[in-house]
């Protein structure tokens, strides 16, 4: 029987450069590969010898879409190594910054990059001709997220205010007042966004994922928690390397992150939601119910609804933090370097972002390891691709290609982040 290969050489509406290759032979999908053509930038190499205080500024540059996630994982790892603990209003401000990043990153993806797939448009600009109010509302939401980033971080991309121990400067109450007004509006817009995307036509598709996310005793997770899964994983973040590994698989062009005992897993909005539904505020749970979503969603095409729900959560959480805020006495807690290893793991918009740093006594970095969310999701993306393509074998190439591209965008893959992706050439 004929063998055919469907290729998409340049994936659109993903952050970074990726390509897709699908090999169909003998009436079945032989391989599905998400090729990463992003050139390596060697962050873990040039971090060696750098001072701990520079780390948040440097690792931010791994990703322009979610710089705060890298900053948060880094400062938590530093504080973990040096025995410092950030509590109270400083901790709340970090959560607020993370709310800002989730809102801007999720709104970008939901409205600008992902919604066009469901409604048959190539991009948000053409979508805006048919749905001008929806696109304008989406941009307003994104702007609200960026307003938080700008106030707390100084700017939207690569904020400058995060440091080990807290912030360089903390806002006073009066500075947060305009945010409250913008966030009240954003809460309304987010609820509208959930209702809009929940009515999109979704392909019938489910997979039995192992979801991996942080879980905190009382909060929907941003900065802290244990690493848990729906198949019994429940570990401290410092034990990550004993449970997870990066494997080189022969059919692939990238290092794949796997659970040592069980293989591929899923991190990101679907996983966070499934493992932490009970930590969402009642209003967001009610919104989920209205959107027809149970406490667990295994259809990756519905990740757009979960992202919209997470925007609604982040808007509400940000508003709560802003209204309860009383400035701390100092903008940082003391952080004194020592020879130690520290771990940080936080929930980037796309999933867990895990960092480990070994420090010398003067605070210089001896070794760094950074595992970004998209690298972890890659095996899962490929398994989804094989599955979705096998359901469409009798369809024209065009249909298979479009559906596969959409499947990849379900993950909001941020390929620039993926410091671990590598290009591999194989002779056959």
């Amino acid at each position, binding site marked *: 029987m004929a063998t055919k290969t469907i290729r998409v050489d340049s994936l659109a509406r993903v952050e970074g450069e990726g390509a897709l290759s699908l090999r169909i032979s003998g009436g079945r999908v032989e391989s599905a590969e998400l090729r990463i053509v992003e050139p390596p930038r060697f962050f873990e190499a040039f971090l060696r010898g750098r001072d701990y205080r520079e780390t948040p500024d440097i690792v931010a540059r791994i*990703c322009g879409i979610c710089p705060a996630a890298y900053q948060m994982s880094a400062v938590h790892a530093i504080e973990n190594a040096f025995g410092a603990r950030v509590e109270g209003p400083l901790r709340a401000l970090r959560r607020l910054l993370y709310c800002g990043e989730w809102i801007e990153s999720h709104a970008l993806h939901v409205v600008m990059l992902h919604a066009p797939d469901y409604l048959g448009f*190539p991009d948000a600009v053409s979508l805006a001709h048919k749905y001008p109010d929806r696109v304008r509302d989406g941009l307003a939401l994104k702007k609200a997220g960026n307003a938080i980033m700008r106030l707390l971080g100084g*700017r939207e991309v690569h904020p400058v205010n995060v440091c080990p121990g807290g912030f360089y400067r903390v806002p006073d109450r009066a500075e947060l007042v305009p945010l409250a007004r913008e966030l009240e509006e954003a809460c309304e817009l987010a609820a509208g966004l959930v209702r809009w995307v929940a009515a999109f036509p979704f392909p019938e598709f489910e997979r039995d994922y192992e979801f991996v996310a942080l879980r905190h005793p009382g909060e929907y997770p941003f900065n802290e928690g244990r690493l848990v899964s729906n198949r019994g994983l429940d570990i401290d973040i410092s034990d990550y390397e004993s449970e997870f590994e990066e494997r080189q698989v022969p059919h692939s062009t990238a290092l794949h992150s796997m659970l040592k005992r069980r293989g591929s897993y899923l991190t990101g909005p679907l996983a966070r939601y499934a493992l932490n539904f009970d930590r969402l505020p009642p209003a967001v749970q009610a919104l989920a119910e209205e959107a027809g979503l149970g406490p667990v969603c295994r259809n990756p095409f519905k990740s757009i609804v979960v992202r919209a729900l997470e925007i609604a959560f982040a808007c509400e959480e940000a508003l709560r933090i802003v209204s309860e805020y009383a400035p701390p006495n100092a903008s940082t807690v003391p952080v004194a370097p020592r020879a130690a290893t520290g771990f940080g793991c936080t929930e980037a918009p796309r999933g867990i972002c895990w960092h480990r740093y070994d420090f010398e006594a003067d605070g210089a970095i001896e070794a760094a390891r950074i595992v970004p969310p998209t690298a972890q999701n890659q095996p899962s993306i490929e398994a989804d691709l094989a599955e979705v393509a096998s359901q469409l074998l009798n369809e024209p190439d065009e249909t298979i290609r479009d559906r596969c591209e959409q499947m990849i965008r379900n993950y909001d893959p941020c390929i620039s982040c993926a410091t671990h992706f590598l290009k591999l050439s194989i002779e056959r």
Partner: protein
Amino acid sequence: MAPATRPRLAVWKFASCDGCQLTLLDCEDELLALADAVHIAYFPEASSAMEEGPYDLSLVEGSITTPADAERIREVRRQSRRLVTIGACATAGGIQALRNFADVNEFTAAVYASPQYIETLATSTAISAHVPVDFELRGCPINKMQLLEVITAFLVGRKPSITAHSVCIECKRRGTVCVMVQGLPCLGPVTHAGCGAICPAYRRGCYGCYGPMETPNMRALTQEWRSLGASPREIRLALRTFNAAAEAFSKESELHGD
């Protein structure tokens, strides 16, 4: 305007974090108006409609780090009437140019289990090292108002109004008290303006993410840093970040050792 008569815009990515092209999408209030004024013909991060060239204006993000990209940028230049680099990677090689001061094979081995599969150049270089560039917009990341100014200027055929003085002027305009006179080492005096002097307003020294200003007095600045107690290692590290390969910063960094 009809698509046929509007200028055609393309956005390209090389080695980078995507933050500068995201800045275009961060123009929440201006984006739809911009999309009316220009025809966005090629912008893969935002649209799956990827049209063939030629293009009236190409915005190029990222640095050249692979043999394939060194070829690709020539093709981009051939297709583009005007080519503007956006950000520190495209303009100075970016943070990934730290490999230029090290052994790239050692870097590869430090990150990857099978370094023999990595296809990379020994250096990360600015776009201008490979093809002629019509304008270089600085910053890590770029400033969105400056980006809109540059696009506007090229559309109407005038020079962009982007000043090349130091961050110090922006601190004065913002009313920020100099952090250096308060004892904080700051790269503001030698750094190109454009960010709006954010860092000093947040009570920290400028860390030079817009690269060298037009006439930086590097020696005077590093002497001042020494008198504020900065070690040679700290000075070298400060100069070797997002614009490490910009000539003024890289030359001065060589003079300050561990």
